[in-house]
């Protein structure tokens, strides 16, 4: 399993379309991708779970990837977050 902490940098936080990007990206990998904030955990398979994390700008999110292609998934996720969750879906 890989973990990385990253800060949400886009001004509107993890809004619906940003969440859609995350789900869409995670679906391309075979490993399990989860987002964790404090004690709350959301599977990147569920757009609603991620929306309900309600991560606003500045929130630190722990990304976890676990499975065969976990390192590729991690770098893709980190790139997505670092790019401000480019909102095009």
């Amino acid at each position, binding site marked *: 399993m890989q973990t990385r902490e990253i800060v949400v940098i886009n001004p509107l936080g993890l*809004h619906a379309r940003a969440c859609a990007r995350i789900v869409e990206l995670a679906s391309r990998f075979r490993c399990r991708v989860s987002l964790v904030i404090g004690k709350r955990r959301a599977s990147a398979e*569920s757009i609603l779970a991620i929306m*309900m994390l309600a991560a606003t700008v500045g929130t630190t999110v722990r990304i976890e990837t676990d499975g065969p292609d976990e390192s590729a998934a991690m770098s893709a996720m980190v790139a997505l977050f670092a790019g401000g969750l480019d909102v095009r879906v």
Partner: protein
Amino acid sequence: MVSFALHGVGVSGGIAIGRAQLVSHATLEVAHYVVPPRQIPAEVERFSTAVKEVQRELEALHLAMTSGDVPGEFGAFLDVHWMILNDPTLSDAPKKIIAEQRCNAEWALTQQMGVLVEQFDQIEDPYLRERKADVVQVGERVLKRLMGKRGATAANAEEQTILVAHDLSPADVIQFKHHHFAAFLTDLGGVTSHTAIVARSLNVPAVVATHNARQMIRDGEMLIVDGGNHVVIVNPDRAVLAEYRLKQNELEIARQKLKRLRTKPAETIDGELVELEANIELPDDLPQALENGAMGVGLFRSEFLFLNRDGLPSEEEQFEAYRKVAEGMEGKPVTIRTFDLGADKQHELLEGLTRVAPNPALGLRAVRFCLAEPKLFLTQLRAILRASHYGKVRILIPMIASLGEIDQTLAMIEHAKESLREQGAPFDPGVAIGGMIEIPAAVLSISAFVRKLDFLSIGTNDLIQYTLAVDRSDETVSHLYDPMHPAVIKLLALAIGSANRMKSPIAVCGEMAGELAMTRLLLGLGLRNFSMHPSHLLTVKQRVLQTEVKALMPVVDRMKRVDDPAKLISLLDRLNA
């Protein structure tokens, strides 16, 4: 019945008088009943079917809006809704509830929606909290399916119907394009809301942000919607009704006057002839184009062929569609744009192509995509060429950035012609080939392009997007999308000026061509060919008839050089005064 007025924001002008039709909140009408154990599997199945149906509905809507008048933003929202629908917490959890509580599917779904909404309500950030609206909209779609209702029913043809809703989801709004509502009224919304955009494109009045219209108005009540004055009158008394009927008549008379311009040539006061053509999306749009006096079809978007289907459209099918329009225009030019498909459509069409571009607007789309899929491109080119035997067909290539792409495309067209010749299929050997100017690089290379192409057409929407690097569908930057940016005006001046000097026909077929405020500026820049949504043709023609190009020149020449946006706006106002 008490008469009262509601105020909101009129986002589309005009007056409509009709009966209210409320868009119901399905959640309020859900009944609870116990399902016998034997029937539980069937009840679960009924729920799954409804989810699948809504899934297909959203997919069909997504395909139905391929480019065209529908902003890309709708697509993104539909994607979000599709994902929410497929989220196990919405599409699986109710199945468990049905089994555990032995209740009907509607009740189970309502329970689960309640749980989700409650969780959203605990979110502190107001913006993120409001996203529960998406969950409710998706849930309600499924509920309506379960309850055997479709979103809204078609309006009665004899009586005008006015749609009253709390808010409209993008999917609702796209569907309403096909109903004939006389006006739209919503509690929420603003100038850029979906309701506003669709109402304007349908040319019907709309008042949004009325706060509580949906609660105050009852089904079937008489309404007057005055979009221009931001007001709604509920249960008007006879005097008020008479007054508004009179006003409505006056507007209608003005519209009829416009209609008389249908056959009049579009000629400025100083004798400059202007070609006004129509943008169409479907062969069925043809009558509207002709009714409004279109001198041709300046842009026939071919993406409709992908509507509501799984595979690729065959050559025969394409040929029939193109021929219908070519014949329908009776010798007037019909400009068919080859597929302008973006990355979002490709993987639905071509199996195995699941790579999603990180930046679709800069990715494999339009002519790039067609050149990468030569079989698909060749099929379309053959179909267009075959149709050219039946009318004056022209081929328009979207999103050209380089000479290399022009050469490759011309070679493909030559190849298509060769294969038709071998088969003895008739086509017009002199079919004109043009390119869309949508990328700043194309504007700067225009003199080279002119030598290879028969005509050019500026797509202003994409040109603005690429010039300013602004995605209009991204709400965080959409305010930066500015057709009056000095750089945009300079590029337009350069493109039109160069083409005119080289005596190459050039048109504008983007949204700008149909905007009355831009007509004089474009005329002053030297544009003589406008292609627009048919509903704008006559108002633009009226403006052309009232314009003396020579008199515009001093102001327009200054506008080409101005760098101060505020100054540019004040000069535009002066042109339109």
